[in-house]
């Protein structure tokens, strides 16, 4: 009994807070998204370590070794299923976690730097998924990696060299597989351990998750606390158990298959990236690669990192969507994005691309700089309109821009998943 209590006191309360603000406990404040991400990482490490025992990282053996794991090993298919679904869910849940943190303003003061760490962690999640899907060495693996390393070729000056380094040669081959395997099984997991510890510690330093408050209400000087056990930890256990059940069910009933083995001679038609990268693939169709693969992603990353360090007039901490006006501008931005993005995609497909051939400008200007500047001006105009017409604060206007761009990305993902057919041409899904 005494021993049990010691474990509870010194281990659990070392990991989790011994008391938490009551207002942060309701499920719909955080949805447990951060904890779910952490649990998924644990699932990934365990199943990943198991699969490392069976996997052989050479082009000749990779595909067959996974096939063997699926068909000949007891529970091999289940282990891979759990890994696959945990990885896919992790992307969705980590992004939702980012949105939750963003929209509750939990990115100010003591949380500023933790926002940056969180972004690096999201980068690790994407890196893990990207390096992971090369490993089965099927058609998707081969062409996705060919395309993404192809983007490196457009880095000014050192592009060709960078591409050769990433591929370990002129083309995707055995060396590429070893490089990606090492990143996937060593570099990324090590980064996860360090960064997750850092991330959790920064949350504790900020006195737990942000305390919610109504729009316009001041930050409460004193908050009521509840004990970590059982109020917090039982809730977390419940979320964890449900999540594991969902992952297991998905792994059993929707076991991941294998594509056809990699064929360097023929790209599949259409060749689509996994759902979480396909929006980015859609972007490649509409801009010159210098913009779609370098300038725009770089601008997005810089914008996100810099976000909590912007000049601002109000403190959004704990207020859902910042303010009453913030909620209206957010809705307007979402609707605008939903309407304008599909129209722009169709217009580009029908007219602009043909027009860009007729100009005498080089492609990097006509199909890159020019549309980029026009779109940026459009977004800026949208922001100005909100500032003047709706008297939105700087924070609200910036939030609306974030939503506009996020919705545009979601629309591009939807278009690329369901509305693109052979030759990546626009088609109806029915």
């Amino acid at each position, binding site marked *: 009994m005494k021993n049990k209590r010691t474990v509870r006191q010194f281990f659990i309360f070392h990991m989790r807070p011994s008391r938490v603000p009551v207002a942060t406990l309701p499920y719909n404040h955080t949805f447990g998204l951060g904890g779910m991400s952490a649990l998924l990482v644990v699932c990934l490490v365990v199943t990943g370590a198991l699969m490392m025992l069976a996997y052989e990282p050479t082009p000749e053996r990779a595909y067959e070794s996974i096939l063997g794991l699926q068909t000949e090993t007891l529970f091999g298919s289940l282990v891979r299923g759990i890994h696959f679904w945990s990885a896919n869910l992790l992307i969705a849940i980590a992004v939702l976690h980012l949105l939750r943190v963003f929209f509750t303003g939990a990115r100010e003061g003591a949380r500023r730097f933790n926002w940056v760490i969180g972004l690096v962690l999201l980068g690790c999640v994407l890196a893990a998924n990207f390096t992971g899907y090369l490993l089965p060495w099927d058609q998707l693996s081969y062409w996705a990696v060919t395309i993404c390393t192809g983007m490196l070729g457009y880095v000014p000056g050192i592009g060709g060299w960078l591409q050769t380094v990433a591929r370990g040669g002129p083309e995707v081959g055995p060396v590429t597989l070893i490089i990606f395997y090492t990143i996937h099984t060593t570099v990324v997991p090590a980064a996860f351990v360090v960064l997750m510890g850092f991330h959790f510690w920064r949350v504790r330093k900020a006195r737990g998750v942000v305390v919610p408050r109504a729009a316009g209400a001041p930050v409460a000087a004193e908050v009521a606390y509840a004990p970590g056990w059982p109020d917090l930890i039982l809730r977390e256990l419940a979320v964890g158990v449900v999540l594991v059940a969902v992952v297991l069910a998905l792994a059993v009933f929707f076991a991941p298959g294998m594509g056809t083995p990699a064929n360097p001679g023929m790209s599949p038609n259409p060749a689509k990236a996994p759902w979480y990268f396909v929006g980015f*693939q859609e972007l490649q169709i509409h801009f010159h690669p210098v913009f779609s693969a370098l300038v725009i992603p770089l601008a997005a990353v810089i914008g996100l990192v810099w976000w909590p360090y912007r000049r601002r007039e109000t403190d959004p901490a704990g207020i859902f969507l910042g303010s009453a006006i913030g909620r209206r501008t957010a809705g307007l931005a979402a609707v605008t994005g939903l309407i304008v993005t599909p129209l722009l995609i169709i217009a580009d497909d029908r007219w602009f*691309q043909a027009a860009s*051939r007729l100009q005498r400008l080089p492609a990097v200007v006509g199909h890159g700089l020019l549309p980029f500047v026009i779109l940026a001006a459009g977004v800026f105009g949208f922001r100005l309109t909100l500032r003047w017409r709706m008297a939105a604060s700087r924070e609200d206007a910036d939030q609306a821009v974030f939503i506009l761009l996020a919705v545009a990305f979601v629309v591009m993902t939807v278009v690329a998943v369901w509305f693109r057919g052979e030759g990546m041409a626009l088609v109806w899904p029915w």
Partner: protein
Amino acid sequence: MGENRVNRNQADKGEDQAAGETRRGFLRKVWLGLGTLAALQLGWIGFDMLRPRKRRRVEDAAQGIFIAGPVDRFEPGTVTAFPAGRFYLSRLDDGGFLALGRTCTHLGCTVPWVEADRQFACPCHASVFDITGEVLSPPADRALDMFAVRIENGIVKVDLSRAIRRRSFEAAQVVLP
């Protein structure tokens, strides 16, 4: 114990002031320098490991020159795929030959020839090229690579040892029999 520490701190401070910041500052700089050096070394080693390994692959001469076949086997206005040589042989309407790389110049997918539309259509990002390899629709920003074609004694031969990058199609690139 606590008192001791306070004394030590005070002593340290006194020493600093007496000897100037020089010794402590110097040691700090040394540590910083050594740390940076160690980090750079680690980075360099990692990088060296990544550097493209020297291939032992011997380019055999047979791979260099590809014999496509006699001139009259290729009808004007047709495209013939050579999977073994990883290229397309285009014969234009005027009877001239062009050997085109099959790799999309945008991001490296393999482009199939679509006979119905008489164009190369990339399955990855919807770039389109015509029979000469010229870009019809972006995002690709330069024409398909080509290989040097030679016609000797009515036999079409393609030099695969080097892919020729080009911005766009020009009439001078066509080899007439």
